[in-house]
């Protein structure tokens, strides 16, 4: 009996070893090293110099770090609600099982499949102030469009606009969530005299709240990690108006080779995401319903 158990344990470890080895070598190891590196000055080539908390202290007086936090939080505050509402709107639009609806679902979902760089380049063409599609269209209505990515007042909002292409991802999740709502509930609601608007607010929305919560957490984490659009389209400019925290980390690490400082920045990013996610988890009990029950 014991030997069987030992055998089972052994085969368990052998079976998960590819994942375990990969995790230790390529995730846990580097995470630990980055924590250690954040207490050093290290340029990749010469030996790291231990500086204690200096890197973290320098953060407080680094105007670009403060700017990058501002940019990241503004982007999160603008993107997350738009993504939650936009995805839900799309899901409601493509929800009815009509003929050909699959085509629309595919079209709306498609942009999320494209590579980040390719879709940013397409947006660069559309946002070009001279002859780009968007300003051309605005011109038909006699509006002189802004200079978008060239204007520090508009650049971040142009990036928010670009992110509308990601609505398809949350749409797909919402659709899945809607399909798991039992049809009887709608029947019962209809019998009680609830119109479609009432049904939406009394049945769909509460039962969709776990999906909304899931999307919320995912979007917040994703926006804190946003990098590609600014890296390709603006490189943080003009005048640092699109300098995301991750872009700043990249710049410190791989353009200036301040690995220690970059590691400290990365740990601050991690702490921010962790705190925000925990706060969101805590908030669940006020507004998220699991199969008719409030979550604990």
């Amino acid at each position: 009996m014991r030997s069987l158990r030992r055998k089972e344990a052994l085969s368990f470890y052998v079976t998960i070893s590819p994942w375990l080895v990969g995790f230790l070598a390529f995730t846990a190891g580097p995470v630990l090293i980055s924590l250690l590196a954040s207490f050093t000055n290290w340029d990749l080539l010469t030996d790291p110099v231990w500086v204690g908390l200096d890197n973290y202290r320098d953060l407080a007086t680094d105007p670009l770090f403060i700017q990058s936090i501002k940019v990241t939080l503004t982007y999160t505050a603008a993107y997350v609600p738009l993504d939650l509402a936009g995805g839900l709107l799309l899901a409601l639009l493509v929800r009815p099982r009509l003929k050909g609806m699959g085509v629309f679902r595919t079209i709306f979902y498609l942009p999320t499949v494209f590579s980040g760089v390719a879709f940013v380049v397409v947006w660069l063409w559309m946002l070009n102030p001279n002859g780009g599609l968007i300003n051309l269209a605005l011109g038909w209505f006699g509006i002189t469009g802004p200079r978008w990515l060239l204007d520090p007042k508009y650049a971040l909002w142009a990036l928010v606009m670009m992110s509308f292409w990601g609505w398809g991802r949350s749409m797909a999740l919402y659709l899945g969530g809607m399909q798991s709502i039992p049809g009887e509930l709608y029947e019962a609601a209809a019998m009680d005299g609830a119109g479609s608007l009432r049904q939406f607010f009394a049945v769909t929305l509460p039962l969709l709240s776990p999906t909304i919560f899931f999307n919320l957490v995912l979007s917040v984490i994703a926006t804190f990690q946003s990098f590609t659009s600014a890296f390709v389209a603006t490189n943080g400019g003009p005048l640092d108006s699109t300098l995301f925290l991750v872009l700043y980390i990249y710049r410190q690490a791989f353009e200036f080779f301040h690995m220690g400082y970059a590691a400290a920045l990365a740990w601050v990013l991690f702490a921010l995401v962790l705190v925000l996610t925990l706060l969101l988890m805590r908030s669940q009990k006020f507004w998220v319903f699991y199969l008719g029950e409030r979550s604990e």
Partner: protein
Amino acid sequence: MKKPFHFLSVAILLSLVLSACAPSASPTPSAAGGTVVIRAGTGDGGDGLTPHQQIIQNFEDKNPNVIVQLEPVSGRDYYARLLTQLSAKAAPDIMQVGDDAVPSFVTKNAFVPLDTYLKNSNFDASIYLPGLLEPGKVNGKQYLLPKDYSPLAVYYNQKLFDAASVPYPLDGWTWDDLLATAQKLTVKDSSGKVTQWGIQLPAAWTTGFEYWVAAAGGSLISRDGKRFAGAMDSPEVARAVQFYADLYGKYQVAPQPADMNAFGGGNSEFANGKAAMMLFGRWPQSGFKKNPNITLGVVAPPKDKVRANVLFWGGFGIATSSKDPDTAFKYLSYVSGEPGAQVWKDWALPAVKSVADSSGLSKDPIEGVWIGELNYLAPRAYTFTPYWNETADPALRKVLESVILDPKADVKVLLAQAAKDAQAALDKLGK
């Protein structure tokens, strides 16, 4: 039935794990038959690789026991990759690096000093055109030899000058001449919209802007590389920034940048025949020569207080991690020497004087202008401090972006702030 399956899956997994741990097959430095493999890293890509391959081919024909393996990494990740390879002691034997990266690579101990190799091999370092060895030098020691280079010059489209009956700009012209010429060639339609621009400028390109500073007689940093006050905020720098900004804002002879993030502003007006002049390096020249919108002329950049120019430069050096620096130097002296220049001359400006002369490039009405500008080089700002790129460069860029975006911006206030920001950043790093 259950057992063999169990055993098999464990065996497969084990073999997978073990094979992942085995060292990967990497090219060994010395292959069979006494041949030596030299790895050469370059940041060039696409068509730019052809001359490298051509030179390698020629070299291997002459040295049958050496194989040169070209390792191109184009794009912004090239330096990051080199540094990672260096820290893993797996860098290419020969590394190509651009001007402003030289001091930082050398202070990180990435390159072998070449002086003893140059002496022992009797390599004649005086074969180069003036000013081309300096960017490869740090603290008086030679670490890299030149590959290719470009100063700045003003391209002009003779078609647009002829149509407006404006004489072509002449060598020795001034900033005032530039403004007057640009104004004559800026054309507006009846609604006041500009249909043709006087000059296309390289937006917030900070290193290119050093020409304007040098021509105004200014300098962005103190000679000892420690202070920005009295340099970056000096009246000379203010004059350069104001003049540059006015070309965009006050006089409106230059088109606004199309893409602030693209190298040189991403404008296409000159290529489309919609701008009469353009200040830039030699890189797009071959395209302009083939462009049907353009009949190309090239003239030296105008002078202000001083006649000045700045140099953009790429060179090769030997990595400290190289296991066979002697063979690496053999290739280095070939690729950077006269045989290499014979190939480069069809792709870029050749660094070797005899090649530039014998091919007629030195006397060519267009190429001769570029080569002649080597006599007017001002030292680049990065040569005064190894921290230039992460301290003053962002501060200067901010000034340029501000004045281009807002024609009414107060240049003096901006420069004072930039000098302060750059100083704070430098003090933090230099401590």
